[in-house]
């Protein structure tokens, strides 16, 4: 045998074992959604004997996943679009523009990046209760924009700080103002940073749980993760139905991840955790 392969094969075997540990449970659940309950028990990791989409249909309509899905799409779109847009502006301010009290303002923004959601959830709950905003999209969107722009500002400002000075100077000489420099010169260069930011904020918002659990009382306003948690309490014994619901929640993030994995992994490896 080729000596190179002799060296590689044992490594592949170890790698494959650890990969299967990650993959097998996911694989099992994926299959379960298409099976009958009795077959899940008799062969948990085997392919379905006869494929059925009934579980998805039932979760979607009876389980109200159509409603949860709509809520998740509305909240996530609003949070991602506004957070990313505002973060580009504020990151540009910190990275490129003159402004008094820059250090203090930056420190204030940094705090939001480092503290956990638990640090803000109690007053938000009380206030939203007091002004009657619980059970509205606002109660889910505004706090998440607040936390996301904190991270987004830091993320974008580190891009704008290193933006090529010659380009900016050249554009200034050509008569571009600050706004034009941002959108015509720097924004195209910022594509990788912006894409990473979009993907990260999408994942966090789609998967967010505590805020939605606390702010929403009615089934009609639940987002997918909260919907799934309550669904689980109701249909505990119906394994295939649970699996179908879980897949509806996970599928969008997995698709986005597979398309944009380079950006997502880069962001995560840069220590991008939501505080």
């Amino acid at each position: 045998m080729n000596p190179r392969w002799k060296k590689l094969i044992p490594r592949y075997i170890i790698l494959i074992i650890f990969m299967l540990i990650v993959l097998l449970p996911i694989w099992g659940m994926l299959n379960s959604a298409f099976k009958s309950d009795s077959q899940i028990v008799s062969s948990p990791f085997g392919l379905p004997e006869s494929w059925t989409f009934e579980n998805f249909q039932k979760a979607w309509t009876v389980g109200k996943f159509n409603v949860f899905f709509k809520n998740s799409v509305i909240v996530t779109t609003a949070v991602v679009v506004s957070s990313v847009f505002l973060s580009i502006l504020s990151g540009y301010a910190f990275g490129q523009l003159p402004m008094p009290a820059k250090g203090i303002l930056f420190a204030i923004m940094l705090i939001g990046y480092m503290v956990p959601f638990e640090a803000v959830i109690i007053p938000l709950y009380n206030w939203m209760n007091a002004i009657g905003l619980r059970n509205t999209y606002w109660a889910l969107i505004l706090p998440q924009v607040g936390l996301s722009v904190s991270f987004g500002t830091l993320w974008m400002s580190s891009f704008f700080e290193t933006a090529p000075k010659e380009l900016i100077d050249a554009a200034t000489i050509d008569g571009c103002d600050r706004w034009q420099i941002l959108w015509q010169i720097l924004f195209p260069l910022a594509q990788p940073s912006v894409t990473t930011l979009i993907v990260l904020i999408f994942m966090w918002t789609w998967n967010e749980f505590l805020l939605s659990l606390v702010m929403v009382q009615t089934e009609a306003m639940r987002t997918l993760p909260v919907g799934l948690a309550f669904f689980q309490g109701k249909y505990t014994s119906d394994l295939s139905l649970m699996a179908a619901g879980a897949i509806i929640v996970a599928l969008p993030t997995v698709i986005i991840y597979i398309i944009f994995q380079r950006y997502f992994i880069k962001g995560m490896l840069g220590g991008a955790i939501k505080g």
Partner: protein
Amino acid sequence: MKTANHRYPGESKFKGWLYLLPAFLIYFFFTFIPILETFRSSFYDWNGFSAERTFIGIQNYVDLFSDPLFLKAISNNLVFIIFYSIIPILIGLFLSAILTGTDLPGFSFFRTVFFLPQVISMVVVGVLWRWMFNPVSGPINQVLSLVGLDSWRQAWLGSFEFALPAVGSIGSWVQYGFCMVLFLAGIQRIPTEQYEAAELDGANALNRFIYITVPGLRAEIGVAMITTMISALRVFDLIYATTKGGPGETTLVTGFLIYRSAILNNRIGYGATIATVLTVIILLLSFLIRRFMGNSEEAST
């Protein structure tokens, strides 16, 4: 914030504020003020709806540190650090050690899979592992029976003895791929000459790992520790979706106790006190790790 950005002739020195303002206002009212309010609430006794709230000084903090539930929750969070942080970092180091210095065809596929648990909602992960751990039909008990270990079968998540390590090991499952990918990215930066020189000097694989790889990965190990330890301290979704802190209080964690005290039991001040303590612990921990591990920003490229 290293550069004082220059102004153009005739440009207002407040121009930056204009661009910062919209993001800052939303952040200020929906994140920054709530942080301060949480801290302030921790000195009051309040049920959340009555008009009067009583100032009680540091009484909440005094109560907290003699509250067996809080002590239980904090000690469970420490156990979670073992599962969320220490075990995944060790597995990640082991896997990157065996992969060092080889060019593995098809590695990007493995990387995609190893990172997968990071993108799935923790509620979905909870649903998934409740099925795996199901006492009757779950694959884990089935496999145990299959290999003749019937006596090892457990009601994992319902057992006073095994619920905590069972939920904890879900955390290890989520985190080890992340640690491995992080370390493998870091190893690329270590010059191969170092390994070659060490090999010439007769250093064996273990020595090369201890004296070259691990020090070379300081920044990455720092990032992994901060990320995973914060997840361990903040764990909430997973607990909610699997055990809800039970059976009894065996898997109660700080995040769940905040929810229970403030939201379910209307003890706003007390919940805010726990939230404040948790926040301080998280800030201190990330500060300490950053100090010891050097500048973690270096690891980002």
